[in-house]
């Protein structure tokens, strides 16, 4: 395997990490208003994410940084091209991070309900927009070659909201919501657990339908369908297993298989993309692939060493932190849920 292909795989792995991990925490944020009915429940739901969400988000930062390092042309064309969607994602991630940290500082109902609304919206937007972005990448976008020889996005904002991409967005949104529900069913106790289980089943069926439509449409657009058919099969089988496990109340398996299905979605999309990284919508037009978008062999070599040494270490300690916080959280473990730490002067 060439270093270029290897780095394509690494980028895919980073996005798998991101979708599987932040995917569920987007889902939890979206479900907050429906799954939790009082302050204790809301705080229990948010506390399941407490020690995890920031580490989950780093997968995105590393995916971005690794794309910059390994495929600078891809990074430049993608980030300047998908300008407004990425801007909306940025806004969401900014608001979400401070919302988690600040919402329970005061007991005030007004203060908390505003941050809760912020959490829901800022979880929903990226969950939708990442799907839109990836669907567009796989489908191909209008690209032109500039005088300087750069390949540049030339489609504008509305072009990104085509039906196929919107279906992709709805698919990731629904996928992340169900994935989040499975996570909550696994990590909470009491009524939240029951509601999450039920919601996971309902939204999970919608996800199944959307995923089949989306992956089917993806297949139609590609000439070599082998990889995508295999990937889609894994998605469907894993997803049905997750739903079956959820129905039987086997929460660990439900979450595990929804994680596998999420990972398989990313694998399927990247398989459909390979060896391109940003194909042109018009066949035969200029596009970016793992060769013309890449860094030099030397840089890829350096980064390979860094990735091979660091990724296992990161997985080890991040996994360990998940293990430390494996216990279920029950709303009755939250003492004085209505009170914020800044309410009374000591």
């Amino acid at each position, binding site marked *: 395997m060439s270093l270029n292909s290897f780095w394509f795989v690494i980028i895919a792995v980073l996005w798998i990490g991101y979708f599987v991990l932040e995917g569920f925490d987007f889902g939890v944020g979206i479900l907050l208003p429906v799954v939790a009915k009082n302050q204790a429940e809301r*705080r*229990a739901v948010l*506390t399941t*994410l*407490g*020690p995890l969400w920031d*580490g989950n*988000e*780093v997968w995105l*930062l*590393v995916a971005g*940084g*690794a*794309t*910059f*390092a390994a495929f*600078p042309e891809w*990074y*430049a*064309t*993608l*980030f*300047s091209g998908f300008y407004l969607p*990425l*801007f909306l994602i*940025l*806004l969401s*991630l*900014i*608001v*979400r*991070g*401070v919302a988690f*940290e*600040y*919402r*329970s500082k005061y007991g005030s109902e007004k203060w908390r309900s505003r941050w809760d609304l912020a959490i829901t919206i800022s979880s929903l937007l990226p969950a939708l927009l990442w799907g839109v972005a990836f669907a567009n990448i796989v489908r191909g976008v209008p690209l032109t070659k500039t005088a*300087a020889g*750069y390949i*540049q*996005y030339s489609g504008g904002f509305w072009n990104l909201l085509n039906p196929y991409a919107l279906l992709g967005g709805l698919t990731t949104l629904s996928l992340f919501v169900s994935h989040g529900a499975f996570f909550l069913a696994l990590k909470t106790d009491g009524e939240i657990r029951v509601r999450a289980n039920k919601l996971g089943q309902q939204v999970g069926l919608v996800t199944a339908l959307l995923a089949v439509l989306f992956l089917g449409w993806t297949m139609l657009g590609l000439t070599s369908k082998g990889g995508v058919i295999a990937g889609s099969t894994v998605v469907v089988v894993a997803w049905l297993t997750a739903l079956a496990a959820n129905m039987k109340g086997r929460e660990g398996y439900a979450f595990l298989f929804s994680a596998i299905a999420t990972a398989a979605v990313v694998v399927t999309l990247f398989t459909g993309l390979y060896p391109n990284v940003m194909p042109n919508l018009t066949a035969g037009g200029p596009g970016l692939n793992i060769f013309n978008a890449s*860094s030099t062999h*030397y*840089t890829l070599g*350096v*980064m390979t060493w*860094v*990735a091979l040494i*660091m990724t296992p270490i990161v997985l080890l*300690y991040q996994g360990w*932190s998940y293990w*430390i*916080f494996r216990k279920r*959280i029950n709303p009755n*473990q939250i003492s004085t849920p209505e009170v914020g*730490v*800044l309410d*009374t*002067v*000591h």
Partner: protein
Amino acid sequence: MSALDLARWQFGITTVYHFIFVPITIGSGFLVAGLQTAWYRTNKDKYLRATKFFGKLFLINFAIGVVTGIVQEFQFGMNWSSYSRFVGDIFGAPLAMEGLLAFFLESTFLGMWIFGWDRLSKKLHLASIWMAAIGTLLSAYFILAANAFMQHPVGYVLNGTRGRAELTSIMKVLTNSTALAAFFHTIPSAFLTAGALFAGVGAWMIFHKKDAEVAKPALKIGLITVLISFVIVAVSGDTTARLMTTQQPMKMAAAEAVYNTKTNVPFSLLTVGTLNGSKSVFQIGLPSVLSFMATGNVNGTVEGVNNLEKSYEQKYGPGNYTPNIPFAYWSFRLMIGFGALAALISLLALWFIRKGQFPRKRWFVRSMIVLPFLPILANSFGWIFTESARQPWVVFGLFKTSAGVSPGVSAASVLFTMVVFTLLYGVLAVIEFGLMLRTIKVGPEKTIDRDDNSKTLTMAY
């Protein structure tokens, strides 16, 4: 305004804003780790209460520093795609390393620290805050190495066919003299900033008769941290100035508004009049100090703006290679001035509180409240100086800022995002400042429940 100007403004606004919080986070992370270590060693309750109290201030800052940092990584691609294409082969590597080595470390271990009070052993819990603090240091190093390439490019070769700079030695990029000097200038500045915050908070608490047990050590630790850091900042600042003289002589000349090449150049403290070199101006200067700062020799020659402009035009072709001189001159002075003022106030304060006294005077507590803001201003002016006085280059001698902007992004798009970022950042600043003040007012918890068998969570969102 053009997309270029707007993109520059956006970078300035978002970066200066981000860097208000970064030094506080880096410095107070270590100070909090130090307090917790003191608790671990002595088992004294006051250190635990101090750890939790300053830990809250640290986390309020950390949250906003993290989220505004994400913008930085995206922004290169969004607004500066041509720049990203030109430097990606080199610049992307330290950025990716920052993510893999530093961001994962800080975020994971900080999560363990915040939520792990009742889940980890005392020792592991202490280790987690140290790991997070080390993560912030690594992060600083990689991003400074990336920035150093823009100040003083090393370890690269130009590829004409692909129109980009390509990496030839990662070791050269990571051991760039400019990066090392910047690291030893920026990190102690971060400690200075956090020290000033601790001292200010401590003094305010003592003045208002709140929890002297926590406030007294905070004040003392804060002041000592400021003074020790200031010495290191001054020494590394001196090294940085000398490197700047050889690597970016125009920046040094701009910092001092030296138009004509001279020897025995004084360091000007203050200038009245214009700084455009045409009129004679009134200056108060320290004789030969600039020559010494720049070259290490009182008789050293400092190249002037006019001579450098001429030689750059010969070397790089026609164009304007002079940065905004008054801007550079004043930002350089404000950086040094605010930093030195913080050190001076801290030195005097340390004198006043010797033998455990505390002057209950309004002027004293007021200057202690001003203290934390001084290094924040110094940090901001320092970066404003170092980035703006490099202009017109984005990568010195290789690539101009004007060539770096995204060709496909309209001025309207950049304006729109800039306005929204600025509004959001403004709102967040008000919220964060309010939370900081309230946390200080609420003060440290009086008693800390250390019952490990408790059914309730020690920490919940």
